[in-house]
């Protein structure tokens, strides 16, 4: 197939500076969801299609189609070229791709135990046990939802620069959510794990213990205090650090945001952004994490990227286009959700590196304040650099120790303030945030994390 697709590109005469690529993708997977003890749904999903980009006279065109018919792909390429030509007449900021940059390679996923070979009944049993353990922990648990998803995809990528790449990717994700209720007081908690390793990870995942922990957390939060509000010193757990470093900082490091003047980090390369205790990386080469992959959706081999070194900004995340525009080397960060979308600059596994303090030492540093644990989403305005994150719960910190539990606690502030005001970095790096990252209406699997952090004077609030 890849030779046929390459031949389609070879038949078209592209001028110097023009570019096109064809991405053929086949993906399939199963998912199981159980809700309140009842089977919610069992799914098999299959995606087969082609995404085609053309850059003509500096204008971009993109066309997607279902199926792999060669004649239809040829037609779609012509349409992409026509759209690009029309766009080129109206643009001011011309698109640019490298004059020379090609990759040839194949990456085949090798699972220890291939999730595709596990019987659907065995997958169901695992989810059932997870959901049931959580639900039966207490009669105050009024709702539960547990799910398991596995996905596998193969992409063929060819372009007019000579790139010819075959890349495979597969992942597994398990999740359980619970709602506890006492009158009008309701608390929501969840726990999840995601991996690009095989079924062996699910065999290690103790759904009984995890379910009990989740149920216990949901019930305990019903009696927790409302959070204090105002500016105070805090300790963030690794999942909050993960959400922070991904949402609040990582997106601002994406070079397309920098070029679009939509990032607070524009013009700050080489500047001291925060405490010299902070080192930040994005590394899709770490085996087994959700955001791990070999080649990106432009066929570039990905590498570990250092974004911040001892508080100083040292790197961006790049696609072929952003690297060319900024005169830097591509680093394999252009990812597309599927054939129906253009690759855009994305993170893989983003983290703040570990420091040298124990959790107890972080609490002592803060002395009086708030500990936030188990992230529950949030959002960021990358242009303004303002963030808002909520946690499933937390504790007051009094005299350097954890005191009363608190519910529905949130934190907000300016993105760089967290880096500036970090006074302590924990020693236990955990990738505690397995998630799906949304950008440009595309969702891609990512992981994020860090050690716990002690931070001065952050706005805390909640219900």
């Amino acid at each position, binding site marked *: 197939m890849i030779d046929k697709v390459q031949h389609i590109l070879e038949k078209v005469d592209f001028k110097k500076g023009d570019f096109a690529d064809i991405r053929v993708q086949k993906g399939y997977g199963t998912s199981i969801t159980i809700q309140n003890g009842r*089977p919610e749904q069992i799914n*098999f999903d299959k995606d*087969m299609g082609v995404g085609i980009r053309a850059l003509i006279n500096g204008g971009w065109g993109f066309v997607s189609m279902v199926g792999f018919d060669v004649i239809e792909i040829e037609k779609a390429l012509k349409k992409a070229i026509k759209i690009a030509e029309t*766009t080129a007449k109206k643009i001011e900021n011309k698109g640019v791709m490298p004059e020379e940059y090609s990759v040839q390679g194949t990456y085949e996923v090798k699972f220890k135990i291939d999730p595709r070979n596990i019987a659907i009944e065995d997958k169901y049993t695992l989810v059932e046990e997870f959901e049931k353990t959580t639900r039966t922990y207490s009669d105050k648990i009024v709702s539960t939802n547990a799910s398991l998803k596995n996905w596998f995809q193969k992409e063929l990528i060819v372009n007019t620069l000579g790139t010819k790449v075959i890349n495979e990717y597969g992942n597994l994700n398990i999740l359980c959510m619970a709602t506890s209720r006492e009158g*009008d007081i309701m608390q929501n908690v969840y726990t999840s794990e995601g991996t690009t390793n095989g079924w062996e990870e699910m065999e290690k995942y103790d759904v009984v213990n995890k379910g009990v922990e989740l149920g216990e957390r949901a019930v305990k939060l019903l009696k927790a205090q409302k959070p204090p509000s105002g500016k105070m010193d805090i300790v963030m757990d690794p999942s909050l650090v993960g959400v922070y470093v991904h949402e609040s900082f990582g997106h601002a490091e994406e070079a397309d945001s920098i070029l679009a*003047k939509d990032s607070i980090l524009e013009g700050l390369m080489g500047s001291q952004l925060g405490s010299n205790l902070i080192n930040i990386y994005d590394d899709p080469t770490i085996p087994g994490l959700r955001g791990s992959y070999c080649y990106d959706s432009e066929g570039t081999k990905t590498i570990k990227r250092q974004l911040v070194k001892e508080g100083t900004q040292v790197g961006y995340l790049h696609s072929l286009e952003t690297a060319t525009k900024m005169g830097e080397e591509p680093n394999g960060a252009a990812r597309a959700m599927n054939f129906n979308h253009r690759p855009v600059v994305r993170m893989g596994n983003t983290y703040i590196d570990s420091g040298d303090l124990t959790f107890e030492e972080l609490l002592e540093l803060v002395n009086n304040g708030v500990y936030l644990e188990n992230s529950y989403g949030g959002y960021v305005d990358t242009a303004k650099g303002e963030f808002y994150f909520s946690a499933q719960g937390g504790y007051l910190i009094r005299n350097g120790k954890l005191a009363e539990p608190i519910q*529905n606690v949130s934190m*907000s502030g300016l993105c760089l303030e967290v880096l500036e005001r970090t006074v302590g970095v924990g020693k236990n790096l955990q990738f505690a945030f397995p998630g799906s990252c949304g950008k440009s209406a595309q969702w891609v699997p990512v992981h994020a994390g860090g050690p716990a952090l002690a931070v001065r004077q952050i706005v805390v609030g909640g219900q």
Partner: protein
Amino acid sequence: MSELFHKAIRLGLKKGADQLEIFALEGYTDVVQFEKNAIFASESKTITGIGIRAYSNKGLGIATSSMMDKESVKEIVEMAVKLSKLSPSDDLFESLPGPFTKYPKVEGLNDKGICELPAESLTEMTIEAIDNALEKQKVIVSGNFKRVAVTETIYNSLGVEVSQNLSSLTGVLFAKAEVNSDIATSWDYQKVRKKEEFDPARIGRVAAKNAVSLLGSKKVKSQEIPVILDNRSTLDTISSIVAAGLDAYEVILGTAFFKDRLGEQVTIDKITVKDNPLYPRGVGSARFDDEGVPHKELVLIEKGIAKAYFSNSYCANVLGMENTAHAQKNSLGSKPHPDLTQIQIEPGDSSVDEMISETKKGIYLKDSALEPSAGSPNISVLIDQGFLIKDGEISHPLKETMVGTNIFELLNNIIAVSKELINESGSISPAIKIEKATIAGGK
């Protein structure tokens, strides 16, 4: 396609399914993307795929494919039936809906002007929005303009066989204003079902004006003060509360805020809310829901009293209530769950100007939903499009400020409803004033 779908249903039943449903989409979307005040890419994307929902002994299997050729449809029908047989029974399931003899006529769901709009015209509309944003304000804009045309088809083994064409134009424009190191961002958007109602110039002008108005934001102290929600904020807030509060599936799960409260006063008597999928040219309008059940209007809250849950066929059967035709699918592969189409809130007798002038100290929110956290009645939101009201006048925009309350407090603390309404292509709302909410400030 009709013969293919009939064959698929026959095959599914032959393979042992008790009931079978086909949900198919065929269409396309054209998108013009822009950033840094200029167009940079155009896209033409497929919206095609098919989903099969099969039930065997009350077990459910779902299979989907982006391909709609005979072989792909055969493969997923067989897979859906296989999964339905592997699935344990859901004893609460009774039946798919249908058949139905009569479907409502809804005016303006599919506009020739949108479907036949040349790609170049979408580009011109985008440029018009950008030019209007930049005409009077110093801003940097980004966003996208989109045309969607899709045919939605639903067949099931009980005799539902319906199809509808839907088209729309959408424009979203984000604006960033910057003076020295002071940065403010805002947006405007519009989605319509008729080309003539689309106003790209307004989208550009409003987004840019909003962004500039948010420059000079200041922190405030933590305190408990009144909050005024503009029309869009009210629409999104009430919509999110009602969506989670009266959802029949949430009632079954035990997490609906208003479970067992039908007939009870849940908010002040000035609040009446209905869901209206029949509104002409409404962007949430359609002839039938995602199970092929004919749409109709539904009063959700009348003079503050909770009147009805909204349901799909599954929930209606479980709760022994009428199916209100609110089944919606998030994707081809999702099981349909109840969701609102477009809500319409009755006007009150106050005015936004009065609400502001009568407020000694408070917050004015623009286009900011006070949404409850997923599944919880608690509300905790960062204010990024808000202003401090001081002595009856808008004083300054806010930064590092969060508002916290919960849905019960919010509904009971509404003290004014405006007579001015906004009509967002079928979603209609006044503005409201809330007596008090907790503000967490960074000062």
